[in-house]
């Protein structure tokens, strides 16, 4: 059971998912924490993660959607291969190391270049401000400003603080879908929710 408010909000806004199957592309600079996030989403062990050379893929069931999440290596020399994965993407998740202020400009530049890609035009983007467990992490609002997210006008965007390491903001809970429906958590919790997640 995956429960990220940011992702939830974007999934709710998706109209074109007739088979309820959603292709999610996970991108970001090297060492942003994409693979850790992916494993966290899939409730897998995150203790031995090495830099991704190619890609990882996981399928996760959530909110009645089947999420196929593609995590592509972020090192500079392999970034040109990102474009091979653009096709049919429903949601772009862009992961940022919130503590690495020195690279904010570089990550912003990469994101801007991604959003200019024709094959990703109109694709909603969720920015994960990762590594919030570190004391030096910049808050999501600072990242939103630093990355000039407000210049994105052609699509839905959403930013969410998280820590792939602790699972905060990417909360993965083991609960059956039935129990969820029984508790009425599907809608209620979010309608009355606030934005504490930021």
């Amino acid at each position, binding site marked *: 059971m995956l429960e990220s408010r940011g992702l939830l909000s974007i999934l709710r806004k998706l109209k074109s998912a007739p088979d309820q199957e959603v292709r999610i592309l996970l991108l970001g600079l090297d060492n942003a924490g994409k693979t850790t996030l992916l494993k966290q989403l899939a409730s897998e062990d995150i203790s031995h993660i090495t830099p991704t050379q190619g890609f990882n893929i996981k399928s996760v069931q959530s909110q009645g959607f089947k999420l196929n999440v593609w995590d592509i290596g972020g090192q500079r020399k392999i970034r040109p291969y990102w474009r091979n994965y653009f096709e049919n993407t429903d949601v772009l998740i862009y992961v940022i190391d919130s503590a690495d202020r020195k690279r904010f400009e570089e990550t912003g530049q990469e994101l801007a270049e991604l959003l200019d890609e024709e094959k990703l035009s109109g694709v909603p983007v969720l920015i994960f401000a990762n590594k919030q467990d570190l004391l030096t992490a910049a808050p999501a*609002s600072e990242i939103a400003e630093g990355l000039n997210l407000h210049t994105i006008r052609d699509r839905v965007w959403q930013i969410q603080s998280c820590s792939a390491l602790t699972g905060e903001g990417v909360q993965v809970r083991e609960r059956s879908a039935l129990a969820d429906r029984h508790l009425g958590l599907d809608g209620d919790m979010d309608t009355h929710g*606030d934005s504490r997640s930021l």
Partner: protein
Amino acid sequence: MFSLMANCCSWLKRWREPVRKVTLVMVGLDNAGKTATVKGIQGESPEDVAPTVGFSKIDLKQGRFEVTIFDLGGGKRIRGIWKNYYAESYGVIFVVDSSDAERMEETKETMSEVLRHPRISGKPILVLANKQDKEGALAEADVIECLSLEKLVNEHKCLCQIEPCSAVMGYGKKIDKSIKKGLYWLLHIIAQDFDALYERIQKDTTEQKAYEEQEKRERAERVRKIREERYFFLCDFLFPEEKEIV
């Protein structure tokens, strides 16, 4: 007979009016019901909404208007992005949770900050006093008083209308009539002063775009330099003797 012709003329004039593109910005505290309201306007169920911590927009046609509404996140720490959308907005829709008396002071301060902004002052504002379906919701007059709305809009020369409403009561054709009425009012006011607003918005957006373009160019240049430096550093590291030859 003369008046009939005059009527005809004005009808013709209206008929020949071009389609007008109008952008509205929708703001208000988190959990006020902004996304529920736009969903209702769009004809989708306003239930089952997750908090917006970012940006989404809807497009709709309303008579001769092509309206775009920017639905912005209302959480305290995302409000900083609002100002970036003011330049291109013809008017403001401010949504208030009327049932949350405790946050009226925060609402008041937030609204004051919006109206005070030089790119908003003088533009019309529609206040939706939402969640009237909830028990204990403040009535129109109380909301006006809590927000010192009169003083606020007079000070900043913003034409204002307040509509008590309930975004979750219905959607599409069954949407709360007050929301519809408010939207009509806002568009009507904008139409009356369209040319002046249009000119102001052109000027402000041109300025903002130029600024953003410049920022973008400068950043691209900085990133290019960083990448280059890193490359040279790597070269120095790998081939130290070659450097001496150069």
